[in-house]
């Protein structure tokens, strides 16, 4: 059993990776990007294409794909989200949903329905494991993934609290108009935030491809996992995302023990339970799960 718990915790690292971009983008721009999962799958396909076509190993491929994802994020914010956000809070949901459909089906058009994996391109890493005391075997990849998540979340935290650009992004997320009045270019801050978010998405896509298989329509479950982990973790803090990811993964692991179909059901169920508990505890005053407290300064 302890073996399963450890596997679950490590899987939580992956969920934290995929969730942190979603919740980061929401906390800065107040947009839930429904194309989030599809973009992760896009990154996985890009790596797969580089590996199978040009023999570029996935970890090296990241050097190409991650900057590309940053550019996509920047363009996404500048050309789509900025415009649709001006039309109210609901429009970006529709825009990003439309984008998800476009990405999914373009991938299908390009790569067909076959499931792919990056596992064949990372050699023994996909199945190697370390033996821990108590004859527990942990996959090397899972451990790398978990530490990547910790490093990423920690790095993001440091960036936001210690650098001028990070402060500018936080100021924009609190109050974009006032940010402009103190000299922050809110549009640029948002575009940088979107670029950073998509770099994390790209990384999550890489790990998705390495630890499992994916197909053109694999974006939907990734989006739901990301959302669930972010909400369970109480998306205010980045570390909450890690906890949310771990809880989600443990619930799935537990669900799989109970019933062969239980993996996904367990995850969705724990999400709804957390949601229900949090809503009934917060009472009617709760306006939003994602929203950090009060935006007004007085």
């Amino acid at each position, binding site marked *: 059993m302890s073996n399963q718990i450890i596997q679950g915790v490590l899987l939580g690292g992956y969920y934290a990776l995929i969730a942190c971009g979603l919740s980061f983008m929401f906390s800065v721009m107040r947009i839930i990007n429904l194309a989030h999962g599809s973009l992760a799958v896009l990154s996985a396909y890009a790596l797969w294409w580089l590996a199978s076509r040009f023999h570029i190993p996935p970890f090296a491929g990241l050097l190409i794909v991650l900057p590309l994802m940053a550019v996509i994020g920047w363009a996404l914010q500048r050309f789509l989200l900025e415009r649709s956000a001006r*039309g109210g809070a609901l429009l970006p949901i529709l825009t990003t949903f439309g984008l*998800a459909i476009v990405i999914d089906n373009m991938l299908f*058009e390009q790569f067909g329905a076959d499931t792919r994996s990056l596992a064949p391109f990372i050699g023994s890493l996909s199945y190697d494991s370390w033996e821990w005391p108590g004859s527990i075997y942990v996959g090397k990849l899972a451990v790398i993934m978990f530490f990547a998540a910790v490093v990423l979340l920690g790095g993001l935290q440091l960036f936001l609290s210690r650098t001028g650009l990070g402060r500018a992004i936080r100021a924009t997320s609190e109050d974009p108009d006032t940010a402009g009045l103190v000299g922050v270019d809110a549009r640029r801050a948002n575009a940088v935030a979107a670029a950073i978010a998509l770099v994390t998405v790209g990384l999550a896509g890489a790990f998705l491809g390495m630890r499992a298989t994916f197909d053109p329509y694999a974006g939907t479950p990734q989006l739901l996992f990301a959302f669930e982990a972010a909400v369970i973790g109480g998306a205010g803090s980045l570390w909450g995302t890690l906890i949310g990811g771990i809880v989600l993964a443990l619930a799935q692991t537990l669900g799989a023990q109970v019933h062969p179909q239980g993996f996904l*059901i367990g995850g969705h169920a724990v999400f*709804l339970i957390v949601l229900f508990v949090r809503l009934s505890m917060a009472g009617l005053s709760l306006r939003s799960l*994602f929203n950090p407290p009060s935006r007004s300064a007085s």
Partner: protein
Amino acid sequence: MSAASPVIERGTATSRIAGVAVAVIIALLAFAPQFLSAGAVDRMTALFIYVILAAMWNALAGFGGLVSVGQQVFFGLGAYFAIRLADAGLNPFLALFASGIIVGAVSWPLSLIMLRLRNGEFAIGMWVIAALTHLLVNLDRLVQGETGTSLISLNVYDASARRLTIYWLALASMTALLAILFGLLRGSTGAAIRAIRDNEDAAASVGVRVTGTKRLLFVLAAFGIGIAGALWLATSITFQPKTYFNVQWTAYMIFMVLVGGIGTFEGAILGAVVFFLIETWFGGAGVWYLVGLGATAVLFSLFLPRGLWGTIEERFGLRLLPVGYRVRLATDVVDPAGNDTQPQHTTTDRETA
């Protein structure tokens, strides 16, 4: 400032003509199968179902401000409960409507949790609900996982009689649901709905029952989409969870409403017709067809967020099926320099529903 007394009107001359036209169209549609091929009857049935889907999603998003990406849950449940009821021995045609009622009933407790979520959270939260429901339905022995099952009891009816019955049922369901929505929007709830659509916080502050009104729309949308799912099952007989709980249904709804005109009664119907035509002409293009739908949705959300009907309405002040009031008043226009210009007659429309 000279105060001109505003004129408040409900219908316009055009809208009275439109009202008659609607009655004539419905009557014509009722007799249409006499002149249509079997295939055309099936296609028309599909159109009626699309209109229901569009109108119901529009009721939720356009009027209630609740954008859901998980409405396929009600579509799938509509079909699933119909299968279950028919399996329990209920007449399959009756089962279609009983199923819609059950779906509506199920949606009520669901609304207690989901309506506390805002915007994007609600959207994706509904998606989680749909995914979970799909998995749970798969567990039902009768459904046999993704293998699915069929509405076998419908096979006792002769094929052409079955086709016609479903056609009329779909037409009647569409007409009834549209009439309910129209009545709701024109009645006292309508004012509340429009107030919420325009500004939720302001509506709440003047005493509009925001949550109650939203719940009404949520349950109505669930009921309507449940009926649509059951009708779809009746036309296709087979039930595969993967098909019915597919997010694609919501994608269609969003496409229809976004193109037609979100928040306008006529827009959803127009959107459904446009979608129906696109599907008829380009549906064979496979993946590119879906890419095109997604891209069109993106472009409309960016450049024509009011959709076709919203834009037409704005441009020409056209109002076919007025669900609100409009106030026409004469106002003075003051130019920047402070010189009063000639009083101009302007129509201020506070009604776009």
